[in-house]
Every structure is written in structure tokens, then in C-alpha cells.
């Protein structure tokens, strides 16, 4: 055993040289920041794509200059063709769902904060950790590469329903090499997520410092821990789903392609496959995926809340955590609500509808905990807290839409309308993004040792908050009018009258997007010019605030840490560090 410890210490010695320090680093803090950088890059790419799409929807003949350069084939003179619209839509979904929403709040902040919060020097398997980031990055490159090939990215949406995604270029441009690259990209992302989840679970269970019992874990750590389990099981199903799709595309198998499929008057040499099998496999991952995205958001908000309301959450760590566990568990038995109108047995629809409705109960509990924790609080409105409050409002709104889509009868009218688009942008999209912003403003001082600018932060918040409602609440409304999603132009008689409101959405979306550049500027400027940050700027109590900003390579400079309290020792302006032996003031 002696030699293993020695060995472990040896490969934990601070690395030398910029490459080992900042590029191929095994330091969880660096890896976390790498993940966040990738997520921000992806977010701006995805945002640019959404701008292009929105402009095209409102002004179909508008020429978008950069587009002509990006793809002279897909957008002659900068006016995008229908297939290129779908390509952009597919990549918007893929990049946002995988490389932003799954990456930032979980892999990004999780990597940076989880080991410090449990008092560990690093993740359980640092080299595995590095591998998972670079596998994610490889996936990102593969996805980005689809823009470079002549046919452009796939046009089958981020859900890549078979057989559209399975039969190759017969189904349309982008379905050849584009779709193949896409499948490989997703496969890489699966592997990376599995390795990451494994690392998170082991770290949380085995690397907690003395006194950091499970009941004293910070709530963010709890959420990441639960989330790791969900992604461990979900991505382990997306991977085979992708492999089978790849086999259908490259190996000539017929898992998802039925017999007698006719493209261009030619019958394909396939038989016996089932498109529904694909949908089942995909949504078995796909629905937990939205909780993989939102659970870390829960955790970040639950973690930041007590610091800025200066009191523990109602019900302590237990209620909120058990709510998260319930959400995570239920998320595995509700996937069928994506398939109400897809030819699944109507009785199954009822079976899936009930748990879907019941999953609102733990969600409502979480929301009630946050809202009623505000009662009798001393709320401090620093930017992180503003974003938490924004998250609450968005999440409540988004959750409400769920009631309509969870019932087959109402879903049969609203399914595939812009109501759905509005709904998921509120619940998993922007709720998670707001939580990510909260986390970013909150941990930035710890990451870079400098404070971000409060004024810019607040301007960024107000524009984003109002912008989100203008864009996505309006989508709920057009959804009631039956506006169909994933249309690259509105040619149907009943859609044409909706074009003015589409124009409003587009303008709002452009403003919303522009506001994000304030954030970008704030982040970059503060990184180098911001005022020096103290070790504990928010007067928080968890371990990451119990070390220097930024923390040393081994997080605590070799200090022996012992934890005496839970994470929510707040009482007004007083607060007690988890590591301080003083008596508890909030009884956690």
C-alpha cells in the first residue's frame, strides 16, 4: 500500500510547463474551467445559429452575410435554403443540449467545485477526468466538422428520428456524412459523460474529508451526485442507441428501417426494422437528459440561496435533496410522453401520462422550499442571487406548460407546436442557463481571484430576464394558435397571419442575444482587470470559500480539514464556516 500512496502523491505533484498546467491538465479546477470555456464558446455558436434561424423566419428573403461565407451551397447569397435552416436547427439543438446545458452546470461547475466542497485534493481519477474533457472536446470538433462538409450538418433535428437519420443521403442533404459525423460526435459525448459521472460518484462517496458526512454535503454536491447517477444510467442507453443507428447507416443492418421504404421511386434493401424502437431508446435517454440538465441547476440555486438570504433553506438539506432524488428517479419512467401521437399504444399513453404529472409534485416541493425560504429572509441582491430569483420565475412558468404536454388529450393538439418549444426553453433551456449564470457570477471570484462587475451583471440580468419572457412566452401563445415547430418558412394559410408576432420574437431574440455580449465582456474584462477578490467575498460557509482565491493546486495547501457543520450555517450577517469548531448558529 505504501507505494500506491507514494505513487498517488507523485502524480499529484503540481505539473510543470504550460501544456501540463493549462492544456492537458489533470487538475479538476483547470478541467472545470476548460469545460466552462467550451460551454461558453458553444453557447455563442448556438446563439448565432438561433439568430440566423429567427431572422430567416421573420424575414424569409433577408440575406444574412456571414451565412453566404459559411455555406455558399446552403445559403446562396446569404438566403438560407430550407435544408440549411434544418441543418442550423439540428446543430442549435445538439450544441445547446449537449455542449452547453449538459456541460456547463454539471461537468463545468461540478469539476471545479465538487472536490473542493467535499474537501478532496482532486477528483478520484484525475487522468480519467482529463480524458473525459478531451473526449467531450473531440465530440465538439466532430459536431463542428459537419459545417465544413459540402452537404452541411444533418437535417434530422437533435432527436435524429430514424428512419430519416438512418437511410443516408437518400433522405436529403446532410443525411450522408453530416449525420454520420453527428452520430460519432454524440457517441463521444456519451463516453465522456459516463467517465465523468463515474468520477463524480466515486469522488463524492470516497474522497470526503473528515466530518464531511453525507448529511453535511453542500446542496450543490448533492445535486451533482444525484445527477451523476442519472447520467450514468441515461447515457449508457444513448450510446447503444447511437451504435445501432451507426450500424444501420454503415453496416446495412435494419434495426430502425422497416421493409418497403421507398425513396425516389427506389425500394431500399432493408426490412423488419422499427422506428419506434429508436424512439424508445432515444427518449429513455432523452427524458432523463432534461433532468440531467436541470438537477445541477437545482443544486446550484439551492447552494447559492442560503448565502444570499442569510438563513438555511426551509426543511434543511433533507427536503430539497429528497425532492431531487424523487425527480431523478421518476425521470426514468416518463419518457413515453414524448410519443403520445407517435403510434404507441393509446393505453401506454395513459401509463406514461400519470407519472409525468406526478413528477410535478417533487418539482413543486423544490419550488415551494425556495420561495418560502425567502419568507423572513435578509435578501442580498448580488448578481448571483438575482439569477437564482430569475431561475425561480422561469422554472415556475416553464413547469406550468408541463401540465398541458403531460396529458395525451391536450398534447394531441399542442404536440409539435411552438408551445413545446417555448415550454422546454423555459424549463430546461433558460432555467438551466440562468442557474449557470448564477453559478458563474458566484464562483468567478474563486476561479480567477477577481470580482466581476456588479453593474454590468445587473444590466445583463434585466435584459436577459425580460428578453426570455418576450421570446418564449410568445411561443406558448402561437402554440395555442397551432403554429407548427421546425418549419423553415410559413406557407400555410393559418401560419401566415402569425408572421408579425414572429417578427416581434425575432427582435426580442436579437436583443436577448446581444445582452449576452455584456456578460462576455464582463467576464473577460474582470478576468484581467477586475478588483482582487477576497477569499470569501459572499460570506459563505462551504469549503471552497475556506481557501485562497484561486485555490492552490491541492486546494487547501495540504491543510488538514475537519468539518463540524452542515453547509447552511447562516443567521443574518453572522455565518459559521463548515470547518470552524464554533457552535452551530442555525442548528444544521
Amino acid at each position, binding site marked *: 500500500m505504501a507505494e500506491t500512496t507514494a505513487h498517488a502523491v507523485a502524480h499529484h505533484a503540481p505539473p510543470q510547463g504550460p501544456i501540463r498546467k493549462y492544456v492537458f491538465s489533470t487538475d479538476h479546477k483547470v478541467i472545470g474551467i476548460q469545460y466552462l470555456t467550451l460551454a461558453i464558446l458553444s453557447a455563442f455558436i448556438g446563439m448565432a445559429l438561433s439568430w440566423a434561424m429567427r431572422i430567416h423566419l421573420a424575414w424569409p428573403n433577408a440575406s444574412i452575410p456571414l451565412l453566404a461565407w459559411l455555406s455558399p451551397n446552403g445559403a446562396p447569397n446569404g438566403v438560407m435554403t430550407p435544408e440549411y435552416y434544418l441543418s442550423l436547427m439540428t446543430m442549435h439543438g445538439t450544441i445547446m443540449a449537449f455542449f452547453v446545458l449538459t456541460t456547463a452546470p454539471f461537468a463545468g461547475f461540478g469539476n471545479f467545485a465538487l472536490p473542493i466542497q467535499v474537501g478532496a485534493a482532486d477528483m478520484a481519477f484525475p487522468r480519467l477526468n482529463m480524458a473525459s474533457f478531451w473526449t467531450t472536446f473531440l465530440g465538439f470538433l466532430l459536431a463542428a466538422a459537419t459545417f465544413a462538409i459540402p452537404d452541411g450538418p444533418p437535417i434530422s433535428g437533435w432527436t435524429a428520428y430514424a428512419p430519416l437519420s438512418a437511410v443516408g443521403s437518400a433522405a436529403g442533404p446532410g443525411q450522408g456524412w453530416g449525420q454520420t459525423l453527428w452520430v460519432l460526435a454524440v457517441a463521444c459525448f456519451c463516453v465522456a459523460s459516463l467517465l465523468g459521472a463515474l468520477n463524480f460518484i466515486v469522488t463524492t462517496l470516497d474522497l470526503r474529508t473528515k466530518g464531511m458526512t453525507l448529511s453535511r454535503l453542500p446542496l450543490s454536491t448533492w445535486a451533482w451526485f444525484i445527477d451523476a447517477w442519472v447520467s450514468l444510467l441515461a447515457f449508457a442507453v444513448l450510446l447503444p442507441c447511437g451504435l445501432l443507428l451507426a450500424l444501420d447507416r454503415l453496416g446495412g443492418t435494419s434495426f430502425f428501417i422497416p421493409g418497403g421504404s421507398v425513396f425516389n421511386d427506389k425500394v431500399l434493401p432493408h426490412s423488419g426494422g422499427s422506428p419506434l424502437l429508436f424512439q424508445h431508446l432515444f427518449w429513455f435517454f432523452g427524458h432523463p437528459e432534461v433532468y440531467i440538465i436541470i438537477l445541477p441547476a437545482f443544486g446550484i440555486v439551492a447552494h447559492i440561496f442560503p448565502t444570499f438570504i442569510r438563513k438555511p433553506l426551509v426543511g434543511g438539506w433533507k427536503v430539497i435533496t429528497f425532492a431531487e432524488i424523487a425527480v431523478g428517479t421518476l425521470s426514468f419512467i416518463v419518457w413515453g410522453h414524448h410519443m403520445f401521437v407517435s403510434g404507441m399504444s393509446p393505453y401506454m399513453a395513459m401509463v406514461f401520462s400519470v407519472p409525468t404529472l406526478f413528477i410535478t409534485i417533487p418539482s413543486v416541493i423544490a419550488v415551494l422550499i425556495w420561495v418560502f425560504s425567502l419568507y423572513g429572509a435578509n435578501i442580498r*441582491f448580488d448578481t448571483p442571487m438575482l439569477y437564482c430569483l430569475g431561475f425561480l420565475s422561469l422554472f415556475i412558468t416553464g413547469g406550468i406548460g408541463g401540465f398541458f404536454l403531460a396529458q395525451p388529450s391536450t398534447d394531441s*393538439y399542442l404536440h409539435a407546436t411552438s408551445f413545446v418549444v417555448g415550454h422546454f426553453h423555459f424549463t430546461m433551456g433558460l432555467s438551466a442557463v440562468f442557474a449557470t449564470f448564477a453559478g458563474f457570477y458566484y464562483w468567478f471570484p474563486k476561479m480567477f481571484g477577481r470580482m466581476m462587475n456588479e453593474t454590468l451583471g445587473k444590466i445583463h440580468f434585466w435584459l436577459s430576464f425580460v428578453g426570455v419572457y418576450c421570446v418564449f*412566452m410568445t411561443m406558448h401563445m402561437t402554440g395555442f394558435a397551432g403554429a407548427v415547430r421546425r418549419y423553415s418558412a410559413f406557407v400555410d394559410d393559418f401560419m401566415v397571419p402569425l408572421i408579425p408576432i414572429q417578427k416581434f420574437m425575432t427582435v426580442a431574440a436579437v436583443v436577448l442575444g446581444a445582452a449576452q455580449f455584456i456578460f462576455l465582456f464582463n467576464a473577460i474584462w474582470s478576468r484581467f482587470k477586475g478588483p482582487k477578490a477576497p477569499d470569501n467575498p459572499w460570506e459563505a460557509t462551504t469549503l471552497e470559500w475556506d481557501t485562497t482565491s484561486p485555490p492552490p493546486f491541492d486546494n487547501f495547501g495540504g491543510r488538514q480539514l475537519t468539518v463540524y457543520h452542515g453547509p447552511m450555517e447562516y443567521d443574518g450577517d453572522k455565518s459559521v464556516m463548515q470547518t470552524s469548531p464554533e457552535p452551530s448558529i442555525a442548528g444544521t
Partner: protein
Amino acid sequence: MVGKVFAVVVVLVTLVTAYSVITHVWWMPVDISVHGPKIDHQIEETILVAGLLFIAGQVVLATFVFLYGGAKNKPKQIPGGAKPLVLFAFILVGTEVLALSFIGSKAWGAVYFEAPDPASMKIDVQAGQFAYYFRYPGPDGTFGKLHPELINEGNQNYFGLDTDNDADAKDDIVTAELAIPVNKPILLTLHSKDVGHSFYVRELRVQQDFVPGLNLPIHFTATQTGRFEIVCTQLCGLGHYNMKAYLSVLSQADFDEWLKKQAAMQ
């Protein structure tokens, strides 16, 4: 200060939203099917239930932020702690949810659990990139067999009918527009020749996917004459946005007239 602004903004947003939903600024088109009112009623029901939660949630959030923003007094917890909140969630939301699923299942059952009227008129619908085609069985009342290898759209053989050798297929009437007699139960069989598509008619409150390899039945009865749009709601490729057909609900007489004309054009 910030807290008060936040509270005001949240309340404003809530009011605007509530207003536009209640006054139906953008709303569902008139309902022309027999089962439709059940679905509409369910949507109204849900708006009531969910709407109350929405307003309550946002307003309580706004109030607390308004009251306790920047307060300096010693923090206190809500009396009773978490128990009442959890109970509230379980009892109130639980009952709402149960109510919705039970009433909802009635509406759903009315569409999908009831067997189609045996007297209903059978029409075969085929979706393909990027158009719908409809097939009426013709005088003999039976559909001809489908031969995918015979599909030749340039020669107008969309279904792959073997009209030379198949007597049943000879009198099948293939149309690009779905015409149905009003107040007559209709039974559609949906099948796709290539990828997934969907059959969505807002006015009928009907949406059903086409799944390649499956023949999916959907039945309804239209109660008003008129011309409505059938649009595709399942992403099917570059022409998805342009994949549509017209549904014309005609009086029985007009329908017979129309069918005769179509038969002549075969």
C-alpha cells in the same frame, strides 16, 4: 430597491401572460369534430388549474422578494417549517394532478379507446417526402394491394398499385386532396412510404404520426363543411414546412359529385 423592481417586473409579466391567455389573443381555431369539444374542455380545465398555480407561484415569489429584499432584521423561518409545504404539494397538487389525469383520460379515451363506427368511411392515407396522397376504395369497396416497387411518382403511381393485374386496384381512386362528407364517421389508415410524418388538422383537433412500417388508424367525424389545411408536424426533411394537403368537408351530394370527378381523372 432591486427587490421591489424585480417584484414589479414579475407581477407585470404574470398579468400580461394571464391577460393574453384569458382574452384568447392567439387561440385555437373553431372546432369542427365530434370529439373536439372534449379536448377543448380539457385544455380550458388545464388552463384553470395550471393558471392558478402560475399566478400564485409568481405572485408569492414577488411578494416575498418585495417584503424581505435587503431587510436587516434577524432572519426567521416560516412558521411550521417544511411540513405544511410538502403536505400542500402532495395534497393540493396531487389532487389536481389526479383530477387532470382522470378527466383527461376521458377526453383521450373518447378519441382513441372507442372503436371506430363500423359504418364509417374508410380512406387510405399515404405520406411521403413531401406530400400526402389519399385513396378511396372505389365501387368495389376494397383497396388494391400495394407494391412499393411499382411506385413511380413521375407517372402518378403514388401508391404502387398494379392496375393492370389487380382488379381491386383498378377502381381505386387516388387523390391529392382529402374530401369527406360532413357528419359521417371517417376511418383513416395512415402509412408512410419513407420517413416519419404526421397528420395534423387543427380544426379537427387531430394529430397522429405516420410511422414507417405501421398502418395506424385514426377516426373522427366532421361537423361543419369547409376547406381546412392538413399539415405535417413530424420533421421529415427539407420540404417539411411545405408538406401539406387540403381537407374539404362537403355535403354528401357535393362529395359524391367530387368523387365522380376524381374517378374520371384516374
